[in-house]
């Protein structure tokens, strides 16, 4: 009940600030465009690295959306009001984390056509691709939401979130890039599922651990 109310609130907030989401999407697409200049116009190597570029673009964009999810709560001290509610702070955390997860998944899916057009990296295995984007976004969202809660209340907030988040999600980045590459370039050895399992394990660990620790982060 608390959780559904919390998710509904976050999604409503995201819907009302949808112009911001579009701006983040444009940022991600611009990043994809820029990455290709680092490699040069060679079509085959662009296709080879396309999955890596997609996930780097999503990762860079994620710091913007994650930071925003708590930044808006800091205005008019709205967050203190939320904490005064007779509700479990874990509901608040999971509401925000799930809303961020949904937003990152939509962002990732929206960046796929850009990747296909720019890098000629099309695939017909869409369910598997969607599955990886879901699992990878979940891996970014769980620790990202927790760190965003800290960063929003600290000095140098823009710097702190990526500094804490990026080293942590190296396994997510590795597994997502590898699994996406296998989908785009072909997977003769059937390795894709083991990378998906790694993502599932990371998600299971951090969705439970961060939920446990969030209460300590926001307590006064």
């Amino acid at each position, binding site marked *: 009940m608390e959780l559904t109310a919390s998710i509904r609130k976050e999604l409503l907030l995201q819907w009302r600030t949808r112009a911001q989401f579009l701006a983040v999407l444009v940022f991600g697409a611009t990043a994809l465009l820029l990455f290709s200049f680092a490699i040069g116009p060679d079509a085959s190597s662009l296709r080879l690295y396309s999955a890596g570029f997609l996930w780097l673009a999503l990762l860079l964009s994620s710091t913007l959306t994650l930071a925003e999810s708590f930044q808006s709560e800091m205005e008019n001290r709205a967050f203190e009001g939320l904490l005064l509610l007779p509700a479990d702070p874990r509901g608040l955390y999971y509401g925000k984390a799930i809303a961020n997860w949904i937003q990152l998944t939509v962002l990732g899916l929206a960046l796929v056509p850009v990747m296909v057009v720019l890098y000629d990296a099309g695939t017909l295995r869409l369910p598997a691709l969607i599955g990886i984007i879901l699992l990878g976004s979940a891996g970014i969202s769980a620790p990202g939401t927790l760190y965003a809660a800290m960063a929003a209340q600290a000095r140098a907030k823009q710097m702190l979130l990526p500094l804490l988040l990026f080293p942590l999600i190296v396994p997510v980045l*590795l597994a997502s890039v590898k699994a996406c590459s296998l989908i785009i370039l072909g997977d003769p050895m059937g390795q894709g599922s083991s990378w998906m399992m790694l993502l599932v394990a990371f998600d299971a660990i951090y969705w439970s651990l961060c939920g446990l620790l969030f209460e300590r982060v926001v307590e006064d």
Partner: protein
Amino acid sequence: MEATNPIGNHRTNALPHVMVGLGVACLAVGSYLGLFVAPPETFMGNVQRIMYVHVPTAWNAMLAMTFAFACALIYLFTASWKWDARLEASIEVGVLLAFMLCMQGSIWAKPTWGVWWDWDPRLTTTAVLLFAFLGVMALRKFVDDPVKRAVWSSVATIIAYVDVPIVYFSVKWWNSLHQTQSSPATVSKSFYLPLRLNAFGILFLMTGFIMLRARLASLRLADELTPPPVQESLPVAGELA
């Protein structure tokens, strides 16, 4: 002053200095043996002698990070300032050792593999760990409230430490497509003594540093937590003239 101090007494005992002294002595003897007495290794020659500092650094870096993880857990359960000071100290010493480890690894890799960096799981995990703990250090710098700083850095330390095995296994899988892991070479008897001495040397040095740094951290904390003394009728600049 001692009575209002919320973090207890500051022992000014000589133990940390003894530890540092012992550590320097062990390292001096161990390094002398490693550099001049132990025979060169058959395949790698003199390059291999970096092992006498590299392997002990690796052991102790892991030890310092694990101690930081333990401090973070204990702080979250007890909320004792003593453990916050120890957390700050062990994170800093751990970062220093992990940085030294990466440097030594690169110095060894260049003549051996021909490259400064190799995406070996251990080397990569150390680098990720170094950056993760640097992030925690930055977090401590950017949060002014001592309670929030202590809780948040404990939380961030736990999250970063749990990541270590996941990073290790993911890099291992990722890299296994390019090269096979070399099996750990069995260490000959004549290499034992300098390796052992240096391991204890760095252990003593690290313990001494953590104790000294924890003392510094708790003194700073005491300063932060003590309310400023009430001063009566401070002279204003204009009145002095």
